[in-house]
C-alpha cells in the first residue's frame, strides 16, 4: 500500500509522527533508526550519513552518535517510554560507487546504532542492513510496520 501522506526525510533530519502518518526515506550507506511505541502509535525516524561527529561544525544529526540520542529524546518528549519503545534498523550498504567499502562507512553506521540502542536498553526487533543495494523504506505508524524495497542499482546516495 502506498501512503501519499508520508513525510520524506533527508540526511540530517529527524521526524516524529503519529498514526495515521508515515515517514519514508531512501538509504545507501546511510542508516535510519526507526523507533516505534505501539502503546501510543508514535514513531520517529532519523537518517544519518556518518557514524561520528568530529567536533567540527554544528552538532547536526548527520552523525549517528548525535542523531540516535536525539531521536530517542524526541520520542520521550512526545510521551513514549523506553520500556515500550522498539527499534528497527535499516541501511548501511557498501556502496562501491562511493568507495564505501574501503572506508566501511555502512558497517560503522550500523555498529554505532547497535551500541547506542543497547546503551538505552532499546530492543532491535527488526533490521535489514549491509549488502550492496540501496533501500527505500516507509514506516507505517498505523501498523507499526516498515515497508522496504531495494534499489535496482548500487548508485543510490545517502
Amino acid at each position, binding site marked *: *500500500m*502506498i501512503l501519499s501522506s508520508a513525510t*520524506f526525510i*533527508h*540526511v*540530517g*533530519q*529527524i*521526524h516524529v509522527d503519529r498514526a495515521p502518518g508515515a515517514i519514508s*526515506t*531512501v*538509504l*545507501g550507506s*546511510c542508516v535510519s533508526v526507526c523507533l516505534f511505541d505501539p502503546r501510543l502509535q508514535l514513531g520517529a525516524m*532519523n*537518517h544519518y550519513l556518518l*557514524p*561520528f*561527529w568530529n*567536533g*567540527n*561544525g*554544528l*552538532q*547536526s*544529526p*548527520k552523525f549517528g*552518535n*548525535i*542523531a540516535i540520542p*536525539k531521536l530517542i529524546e524526541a520520542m520521550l518528549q512526545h510521551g513514549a517510554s523506553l520500556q515500550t519503545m522498539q527499534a*528497527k534498523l535499516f541501511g548501511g550498504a557498501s556502496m562501491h560507487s562511493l568507495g564505501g567499502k574501503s572506508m*566501511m562507512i555502512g*558497517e*560503522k553506521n550500523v*555498529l*554505532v546504532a547497535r*551500541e*547506542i540502542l543497547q546503551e538505552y536498553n532499546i530492543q532491535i526487533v*527488526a*533490521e*535489514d542492513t549491509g549488502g550492496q543495494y*540501496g533501500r*527505500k523504506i*516507509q514506516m507505517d505508524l498505523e501498523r507499526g*510496520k*516498515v*515497508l*522496504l*524495497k531495494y*534499489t*535496482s*542499482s548500487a*548508485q*543510490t*546516495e*545517502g
Partner: protein
Amino acid sequence: MKQECVEEEVAFLSKKILELNKQLMESENAKSKFLSLVANELNNPMTVILRMIEHLKIVEDESNRKTFELICEEVLNLDFRIQNLMSAAEIESGDIHPSHELVSLEEIIEEVLKTLRYLIDNKNAQVVVANRVDKKVVLDSQKLFIILRNLLSNAALYGSQNERIELETMLEGDFLVLRVTNEGEGPDIEYKPQIFTRFAKAPKAESGLGVGLSIVRELALYFGGTIDYEVCQGSVVFTVKLLLDAAAEDSVACGSNEFFFDSFDDAIEL
C-alpha cells in the same frame, strides 16, 4: 578469515571512538542546549518588537527621526543575530524543513543588501554586484537569504574601512555559485577547520558570535553543495556552491526518480 579480522578490528575501534566521542559530546552538549534555549527566549520578544516598531509614530523632529532610524537598524541587526541562532538550533535539532520555490536571485540580493545597509554605510563600503544568473532558479529562498546575508555581513564586518565588496553569482553546471570577495586580511588559511566551527571566529575578530559560517556550511552541505575560502594579496574570497538539480527534484537522496515514485506494492514488510 582475514575479512573477519578486519571487521572485528573495525568494530573494536568504532566502539573506542564512540567512547571518546561521548566525552567530547558531553562538553559540547551544554552549548547545544544553551543554543536552542537562548534562540527561543530571544526570538519571541524580538518578534513582538519588530511588529510593534512599525506602529510607532515619530514626532517631526530631525534628531528624533535619526534616533528612530538608528533603533530600527539596530533592531534589524539584532534580529539577524537571533535568526542565525535559530537556524543553528534548527539544524542541530534535525528540524530543518526544505522548501523549493522559484526564486529570483536579484530580488534576494536586493533584500539582503537592504538589511545590511547600515553596516555597509558604517564601513563606507562599496558593494558591487555581478549577477550572471538571468533566470529564476529553484531553491529554498529563506536558506539562500541566510547564506548570502552571512557572507555579505562577514565581508562588511571583517573587511577594512572604505573597502570594495564584490558579489558574483553564476551557474556552473548544476551548481549555483556565489562568490563574495572583500578587501582585508581575512581568516588565516591554517584556521580553516575552526572557521566553520560554531562559536569560533578568526582570532583577531572583535565582534560576532561565530555561528554564521557554521550555519552557511551546514546549509550548503544540506543542498549538496560546498563552501570554501581563499586568501590572497589582501583580499578574501568566499565561494559557496549550491546544487540546483537536487533541490529541484526534491530527491537529494535518490538516484532514480522511477524508484522514488515507485509504489511499495511488492515491498518487504518488517
